[in-house]
């Protein structure tokens, strides 16, 4: 019982660490990265369109970052009002 509890705590702690590390307070960036990589897998691996993948991957990363920053900016401005 005691051993099970220790194992459960370790697994839970490990899971919580990765959740905080990858998702934390910016779940939109996590989702955006997963969607980006999914799109590139379709374009590059399935569609064999290397030129498109070269452009789309950094473009989606920039759009994700911009959207997340603007979201934080909107939230801060709303708070100020």
């Amino acid at each position, binding site marked *: 019982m005691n051993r099970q509890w220790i194992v459960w705590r370790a697994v839970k702690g490990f899971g919580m660490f990765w959740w905080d590390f990858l998702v934390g307070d910016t779940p939109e960036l996590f989702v955006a*990265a*997963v969607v980006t990589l999914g799109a590139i897998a379709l374009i590059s691996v399935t569609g064999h369109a290397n030129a498109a*993948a070269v452009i789309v991957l950094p473009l989606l990363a920039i759009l994700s970052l*911009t959207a997340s920053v603007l979201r934080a*900016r909107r939230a801060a401005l709303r708070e100020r009002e």
Partner: protein
Amino acid sequence: MLATTVSTSAVVLVGAVFLACAVEMVEALTIVLAVGQTRGWRSALQGTFAALVVLAALVAAFGPALVHVPINALRLVVGGVLLIFGMQWLRKAILRAGGLKARHDEDEVYREAVATLDAAASSPNRDRIAFVMAFKGVFLEGLEVVIAVLTLGTSAHRLGLAVVVAAVAVVSVGVVGIAVARQLSRVPENAMKMGVGVMLVSFGTFWSGEGLHVKWPGNDVALLGFVGLYLVVTWLLVGVVRRDAPRVPREVAA
């Protein structure tokens, strides 16, 4: 050509690992200095040493294991993690530079740590508190360093170089930090974090693409292109945020 691409990748790797380690070392050192100067150096150093041993064990356990993972799978997973981690760092640094988020103030962190330790002055567990505080500070900041070193080092097949650079960064910042003692707030921490964020996103883009069989123009040289591209985007976003951001006072921030 081969020498050029090898050195390009190595230079960006060295820069990213050095900056990431230096930033985290500044944060860890602030806590250790506060513990040492308030409670005495014995517990502070014991906590620091214990955390370093645990971190070294993590590198020894996971470093060699990661080398055996197929390179494309490793680069896809590591690239994805770096992309998310880098965007988080960059977002935070942009919001701080634009005045929407409080900057990390090492003087305030130091004062808060001293206040916490002083408040517990009458506790019979005085040394234990100092040990735990130093351990937690070094371990939590060091964990980010370990992840950066392992992911960047293994994906580039240069784990040895990444470990050496990390050690150099930790020792250099340690020596300089101890020499200047409580003037760590003068370190341009947010600018360094922004630089690390740009490099992490660049590596994340590059490796996740390689993991998905994307052939980058110019091979490793494309990394420099990503660094330039993300720097420009960061600069533009800081400008947008700064335009109408309320001024935020410097205070303790995570």
